[in-house]
């Protein structure tokens, strides 16, 4: 419980004694590249295959001839937009981005780089963590939109290449009973997950004490805690918003 209290105190420190806007602007741009652009490859691979697997497995489970094949595309679309794109992508990003943030800040802590910032009167948590959080909040939704498109495309490619479904049926299914709020819901989730992953990982890294072993442990804890937080928030948001 004390960690939860310290975590919220840590979040509070991000907004006190802030630096000038131009300082954050430059740092946010750098972090957008590090968090966003450098994650495009892994997100693309994971989401394309998840879409493909969802399509194939849904078809495998549809045994009744009374159910139209276009339902496969409906299932791929809804499961992708509502769950797979935002949640699975965020879990993947918790591993990639979360561990990166925790180890970067942890290394800065043990090599006294954070002390060097503090000594000249810079609020190190705000200077180092706030740009990462803002960049995550900007880039996660974009990555999740990309993941959604690629996942649905992956389903299309897998379904049509293996003759599970015709292109016409797939497109028809994608367009049937589409609820635009699903996209809004996915984007809300992506922002919440971005805040959770970046802040939890930053908290773990920023508070490292010791050496390389502790940095590794903090990185592992950051990923574990971020994943748990993402899944818990996923459930809460589904309950609240759907």
């Amino acid at each position, binding site marked *: 419980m004390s960690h939860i209290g310290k975590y919220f105190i840590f979040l509070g420190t991000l907004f006190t004694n802030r*630096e000038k806007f131009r*300082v954050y602007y430059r740092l946010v741009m750098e972090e957008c590249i590090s968090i966003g652009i450098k994650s495009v490859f892994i997100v693309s691979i994971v989401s394309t295959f998840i879409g493909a697997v969802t399509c194939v497995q849904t078809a495998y489970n549809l045994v009744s001839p009374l159910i139209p094949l276009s339902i496969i595309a409906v299932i791929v679309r809804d499961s992708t937009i509502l769950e797979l794109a935002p949640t699975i992508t965020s879990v993947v990003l918790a591993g990639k981005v979360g561990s990166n943030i925790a180890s970067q800040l942890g*290394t*800065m802590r043990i*090599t*006294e*780089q954070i*002390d*060097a910032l*503090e*000594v*000249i*009167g*810079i609020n190190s948590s705000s200077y180092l963590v706030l740009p990462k959080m803002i960049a995550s909040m900007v880039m996660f939704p974009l990555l999740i939109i990309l993941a959604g498109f690629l996942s649905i495309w992956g389903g299309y490619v897998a379904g049509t290449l293996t003759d599970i479904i015709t292109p016409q049926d797939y497109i028809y299914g994608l367009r049937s009973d589409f609820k635009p709020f699903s996209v809004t819901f996915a984007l809300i989730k992506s922002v919440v997950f971005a805040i959770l992953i970046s802040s939890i990982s930053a908290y773990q890294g920023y508070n490292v004490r010791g050496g390389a072993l502790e940095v590794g442990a903090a990185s592992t804890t950051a990923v574990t805690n971020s994943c748990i937080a993402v899944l818990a928030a996923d459930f809460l948001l589904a309950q609240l918003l759907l």
Partner: protein
Amino acid sequence: MIEIKNIAKTFGDRQVLAGISGTFRPGETSLIIGGSGTGKSVLLKCMIGLVKPDQGEVLYNGRNFLTGDEEVQKEIRREMGVLFQGSALFDSKTVLENVQFPLDMLTETPSAEKEERAMFCLQRVGLEAAAERMPSELSGGMKKRVGIARAIVMNPKYLFCDEPNSGLDPLTSIKIDQLIKEITDEFNITTVVITHDMNSMLEIGEKIMFLYKGLKMWEGDNSTITRSTVPELNEFIYANKLLRDIK
């Protein structure tokens, strides 16, 4: 001038500093010496505001650093330069960007002037040729010199060096010591150096404070340290066989 009064610090049930007092004067290189775990680095961190002592005062030209308001603390911080034990250079920035960093963050000076000042400091430590290199490309001694350049870039009144010789060969150590001494004299800085290096003590110790188990056991200078009658200090100084033989 820096005055520390009755500084005490406890971590858990372990008392690390017990009522340390002392004065450090401008233009003087003051050394705080002692074995590992005697509280030297904690004392330095109390002086630069990275650790809050349980009791005591740290005065910079009469201004209380620990209880002064935010503006006073900010003003004092601007007058400080710190060389950390591991140099603490920012990995993602070049040498020049590292040195220029305090100017970027704390001043509104035009960038050409900032760069000029940073280059001057790099020249002062003999590293102008390494300006565009990354910290990972530098040797330990070069990193220390860049750390010194960054510490002096804001024209500090107070310079703190935490074990500037750790991990360096004796020749490079002496060069770093001499550089610290020269800078102290040249800019009339109040310099406080944490060390357990005997060469440094004899070379630049204009004032030396010996800590033992969190207590100040002895105070003097490099001309009197070898004649000390404090057993703990003698044990520390003459741990080396060569020095014992010379004695």
